[in-house]
């Protein structure tokens, strides 16, 4: 008896959790509004895909929690888990048809039930929900038993297809702009969703590429390793040039809207790299980081805006002042919080961020900073007649800033200073005993971070042409911290990936903006559970958190980071 119970346990438990989650997703209206967008035209919609992914995910988790043995138990639990989840939806449909839930739950509409039952009425509809749930479970079980490589290939090729479908509005115009290649776009996409042949070919293409890489990738890597130093360098240099060409051509390939998204991502990369020095390297949790962004913006505004009418410097003349004042305030904030650690530091810096925002908003400083109306007519940057006005032009300004900041971050990381920061993060007392001056080292971290942030703020002011206090809300600080954590603490590529994921993606999916925070929150929780080291972690953190998954337990693992 107990044996049977424990056998079913994981499936039922996971299924219940998943069922509740799916109910929430359905009842907040996500499924219905996603239903308007087809992934594959006339075949499957985004709403359905969302539910299917949920079902499969729950089944897979149920199987994984049961254990990794070869017996039937995990598979059985996968089916149970997904079926229970399906049961929740079936229950919703039954209850919804008997009682009018709409008085309380606005989104529990007949449309939703029709969508869930694929349009079937009565008992048939209920059976269809349960059947689909079970089907998800079977698929999850199959995934679970497949070898790791096959599983990866299947998941990646299917998800690429889904991503292509979700981002169709962005991909289509980009491809269509390429003359002869435009035919591909016609063939892949319809007005709403992928074509059937298009989606199948994407899946096959990605699967083939993945498999080929999995089978031959090791050979290619070792082949590269065997090359002489000279030709390795040649490959590196040509790769570098290709990257440079792509980065330079990017705004023209992507068009106006995507370039605008890129500039926003770029500003967050600048901010993220600055905070990465304070939080990622030096381990000081700073929640008032947006203050320096505000200082950079407002210094630029005061020095350049004719509307405020104090100075009328150009952007380039104002920029050094903005950065220097940012650094100055970085040090100024640093001094009172020198002795604080961890959560105390977080609260103190949070206060500082709010002080700056409220000062800017105050009537007291209104004659100088413009109060709630902000300040406008901030001139665009220009180099020898070339003006940075459109997003496609400003992109280059931000790219230059990002390259500079990445370069400085890289240099600092492997240096005496970077090591001092990391030592301080690991153990402050011991770091001090090794001759590290805590005051100077901490202030330098604050100053460097603040300088990057002020640079970002100055570009932001010039990009927008105006500054308003509400642009510098505390939520910006939280967002920057989140993108560092999601990207991977202390990792420079991690910051870039994190900014693209947390700032770029929501911009791209603006039509679903009402669910933005819900998805954002769910994604953060999922990240912390499934991949706490971040999307692109520093090598050492990856080793630390996933050490037990590797085969060589007990053996110390090499780090390529030096």
């Amino acid at each position, binding site marked *: 008896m107990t044996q049977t119970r424990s056998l079913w346990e994981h499936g039922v438990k996971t299924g219940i959790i998943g069922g509740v989650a799916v109910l929430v997703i359905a009842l907040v209206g996500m499924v219905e509004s996603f239903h308007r967008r087809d992934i594959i035209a006339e075949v499957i919609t985004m709403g359905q895909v969302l539910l299917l992914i949920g079902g499969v995910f729950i089944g897979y988790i149920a199987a994984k929690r049961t254990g990794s043995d070869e017996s039937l138990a995990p598979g059985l639990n996968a089916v149970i888990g997904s079926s229970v989840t399906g049961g929740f939806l079936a229950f919703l449909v039954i209850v919804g048809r008997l009682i009018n839930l709409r008085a309380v739950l606005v989104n529990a509409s007949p449309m939703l039930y029709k969508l869930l039952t694929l349009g079937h009425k009565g008992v048939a509809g209920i059976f269809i929900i349960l059947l689909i749930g079970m089907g998800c479970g079977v698929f999850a079980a199959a995934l679970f038993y497949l070898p790791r490589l096959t599983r990866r290939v299947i998941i990646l090729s299917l998800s690429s297809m889904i991503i292509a479908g979700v981002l169709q509005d962005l991909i289509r115009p980009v491809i269509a702009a390429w003359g002869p290649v435009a035919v591909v776009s016609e063939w892949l996409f319809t007005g709403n969703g992928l074509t059937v042949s298009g989606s199948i070919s994407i899946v096959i293409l990605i699967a083939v590429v993945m498999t080929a890489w999995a089978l031959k990738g090791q050979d290619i890597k070792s082949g590269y390793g065997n090359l002489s130093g000279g030709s390795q360098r040649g490959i590196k240099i040509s790769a570098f040039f290709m990257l440079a060409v792509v980065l330079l051509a990017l705004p023209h390939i992507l068009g106006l809207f995507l370039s605008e998204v890129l500039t926003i991502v770029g500003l967050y990369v600048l901010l993220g790299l600055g905070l990465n020095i304070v939080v990622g390297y030096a381990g000081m949790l700073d929640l008032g980081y947006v203050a320096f962004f505000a200082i950079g913006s407002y210094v630029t505004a005061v020095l350049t805006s004719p509307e405020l009418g104090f100075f009328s410097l150009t952007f380039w003349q104002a920029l050094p002042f903005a950065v220097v004042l940012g650094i100055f305030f970085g040090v100024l904030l640093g001094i009172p919080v020198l002795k604080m650690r961890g959560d105390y530091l977080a609260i103190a810096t949070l206060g500082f961020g709010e002080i700056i925002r409220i000062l800017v908003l105050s009537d007291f400083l209104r004659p100088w900073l413009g109060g709630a109306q902000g300040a406008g007519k901030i001139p665009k940057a220009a180099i020898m007649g070339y003006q940075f006005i459109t997003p496609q032009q400003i992109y280059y300004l931000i790219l230059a800033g990002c390259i500079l900041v990445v370069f400085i971050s890289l240099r600092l990381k492997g*240096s005496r200073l970077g090591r001092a920061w990391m030592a301080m993060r*690991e153990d402050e007392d011991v770091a001090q*005993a*090794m001759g*590290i*001056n805590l005051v100077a080292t901490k202030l330098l971290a604050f100053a*460097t971070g603040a300088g990057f942030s002020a640079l970002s703020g100055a570009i932001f002011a010039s990009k927008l042409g105006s500054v308003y206090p509400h642009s510098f809300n505390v939520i910006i600080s939280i967002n920057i911290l989140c993108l560092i954590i999601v990207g991977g603490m202390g990792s420079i590529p991690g910051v870039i990936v994190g900014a693209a994921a947390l700032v770029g993606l929501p911009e791209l999916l603006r039509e679903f903006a009402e669910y933005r925070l819900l998805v954002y929150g769910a994604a953060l929780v999922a990240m912390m559970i499934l991949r706490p080291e971040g999307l692109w972690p520093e090598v*050492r953190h990856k080793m630390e958190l996933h050490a037990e998954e590797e085969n060589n337990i007990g053996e*110390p693992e090499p780090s390529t980071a030096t």
Partner: protein
Amino acid sequence: MAAILTANNMTKRFGGLVAVDSLNVEIEENSIHSIIGPNGAGKTTIFNCITGFYKAEEGVVLFDNHSLLGLLPDRIVYLGISRTYQNIRLFPNLTAKENILVGLHCHLKSGFLGIVLNLSKTQKEEKEAEEEADRLLAFINMSGKGDFLAKNFPYGEQRRLEIARALAARPKLLLLDEPTAGMNPSETQAMMDFIQHLRDELGITIILIEHQMRVVMGISEIVTVLDYGKKIAEGTPGEIQKNPDVIEAYLGRGSAAEIR
């Protein structure tokens, strides 16, 4: 021989508790000097006072004619004192080599601009530091393990690595806090040889806090015994072994008489 470190009347209190009670001690240059005593006798507190973690309320501590009281730990290491810790305190998420490079921190000078501009001076300094780190790794028999995270090493290697990090500061005086804690007899013997080697080859003065009597009696020239923050005896290992006060402190009142 001259004294490298002199403590006169050093007193450290925590509230009402007197952790170190007017201690007078002289450490001879180039000696191995052990401090022993029951748990809570104030041994580690002495280390913390010497290295600047705590500020002694009274007394004078002189090292090489510099007064140490009131100096911060990061200044004291520049004078030539470095230490290890009772419970190993490596930087766990830094590699072995990075740990040693942090130990070298006080001998590197490159600043923010030098680093960002990658001046030739900085490059040269960094290259020399890496070479020295490799030499130190070789010295503790851990060549080729520089790129592993410190926390992944077995216990004995972590102990050695911590000593290497302390040595990287090129100290004249090295404070070792229970370097053989938790070691088996053969590891202990290796550590004893290593400590003697440090003194003989590098000419470093060593103060040792130790519980294993075999180590204390085997390698130290002078032993100071503490009990409740007070020095109760000092002398060569032979003298200490026979001292009735010491036996009493360790085994309880009346034990000395019984043994006799």
